[in-house]
């Protein structure tokens, strides 16, 4: 049973950073005019932020963390925990979180490690950092979450290229014995691991001469084995089946109803899918913010990015919120944060 409540921890602030460079799906040459129209209507995605060569997820997360540290005048020596959640690490090794500990000039007493998760990463990351901080040994923590998904996309694959954008975020967590418990429902199903994957480059299937061979699956869909492969129908069916069930089980567990919440923030996958999920949990549309139009699917960063862009100034007075994430793994989960007072700082753009 992956339902749990974590005490004594609060989310104080969230920041997010995106690359300044924006691409429009309306300029994407592989799509006909009617395909562009259908894509925007169905996925809700019109523009995406794309990191330039050399700009990493960790750079976007670094800027976000700096914004929080400066805004709260945090003594860097006092940050006890740093967790980096991403599928786009700086190197195979060492862990990016440890490099960030040094870049952010944090103490050598900082506990730092990476979690490799995508779409579900923010919800999972929140649960891990909250668990670590719950007993009061660690008072201040930073959860850095994001992805440079565009790194692995084939520009000649019209079925994936127009969907993803890049972003990095930081969430400032504090130990607080007076905080309301945070409720989680976390789940996994590895039988669906092929639904979203980059096939080559790990120890199971190392790079070979065949890795870079371009495979044409259909007209406008060309990719190689180091690109992202996405089975749209499988992911769609998984998400509309599991995400609503997961949220409803969480509500049952903490004895609340959807009406008790001010906002429900979904992982920004695509509009059609998210709307199916929203209707199944009966969340009114005005409580469900979207950032798909201008940022696309930003993987693990999509929930905190949406909070920064759409809910800035709206989460500061004991608001009740649900966050729900689902995707690559397959991995999914939801979290209910009650009486939240979260300061969502202004969005940063990195040139």
């Amino acid at each position, binding site marked *: 049973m992956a339902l749990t409540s974590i005490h004594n921890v609060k989310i104080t602030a969230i920041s997010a950073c995106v690359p300044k460079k924006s691409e429009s799906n309306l300029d994407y040459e592989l799509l006909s005019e009617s*395909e562009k129209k*259908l*894509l925007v209507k169905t996925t809700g995605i019109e523009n995406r932020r794309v990191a330039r060569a050399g700009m990493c997820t960790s750079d976007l997360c670094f800027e976000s963390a700096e914004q929080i540290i400066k805004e709260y005048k945090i003594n860097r020596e006092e940050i006890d925990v740093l967790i980096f959640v991403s599928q786009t690490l700086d190197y195979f090794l060492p862990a990016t979180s440890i490099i960030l500990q040094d870049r952010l000039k944090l103490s050598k007493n900082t506990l730092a490690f990476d979690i490799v998760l995508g779409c579900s990463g923010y919800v999972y990351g929140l649960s891990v950092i909250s668990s670590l901080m719950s007993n009061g040994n660690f008072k201040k923590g930073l959860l850095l979450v994001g992805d440079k998904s565009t790194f692995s996309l084939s520009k000649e694959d019209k079925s994936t290229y127009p969907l993803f954008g890049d972003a990095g975020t930081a969430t400032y967590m504090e130990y607080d014995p007076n905080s309301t418990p945070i409720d989680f429902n976390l789940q996994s199903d590895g039988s669906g691991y092929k639904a979203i994957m980059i096939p080559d480059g790990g120890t199971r299937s190392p790079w070979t001469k065949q890795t870079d061979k371009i495979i044409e699956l259909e007209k406008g869909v060309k990719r190689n084995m180091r690109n992202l492969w996405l089975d749209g129908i*499988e992911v769609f069916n998984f998400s509309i089946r599991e995400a609503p069930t997961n949220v409803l089980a969480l509500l049952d567990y903490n004895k609340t109803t959807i009406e008790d919440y001010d906002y429900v923030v979904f992982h920004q996958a695509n509009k059609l899918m998210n709307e*199916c999920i929203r209707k199944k949990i009966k969340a009114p549309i005005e409580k469900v913010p979207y950032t798909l139009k201008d940022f696309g699917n930003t993987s693990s960063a999509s929930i905190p990015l949406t909070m920064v862009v759409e809910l800035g100034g709206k989460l500061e007075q004991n608001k009740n919120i649900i966050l729900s994430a689902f995707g690559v793994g397959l991995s999914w989960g939801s979290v209910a944060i009650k009486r939240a007072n979260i300061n969502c700082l202004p969005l940063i753009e990195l040139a």
Partner: protein
Amino acid sequence: MEDIAAFIKKIEFEMDEIEPGTIKPATHFRELEQWSSMMGLIFIALIDTEYNVTLNGNDLINCKTVDDLYQVVKSKIQ
């Protein structure tokens, strides 16, 4: 389940640029000018929302005509 005419009406409503009455039970939906893999997702979402039926990838691949699709949905309801 409602009859196939009502089913077709819903499909035509989802396909923005189609003239009502274009789709017949024997229509091969993949051969329609408006068809694309994205339409597959739209069909799945429509059928899930309207009939609470989940179509998987194979269901869709195995269907050629609109009537095939209707029969699959009908069998999954019963």
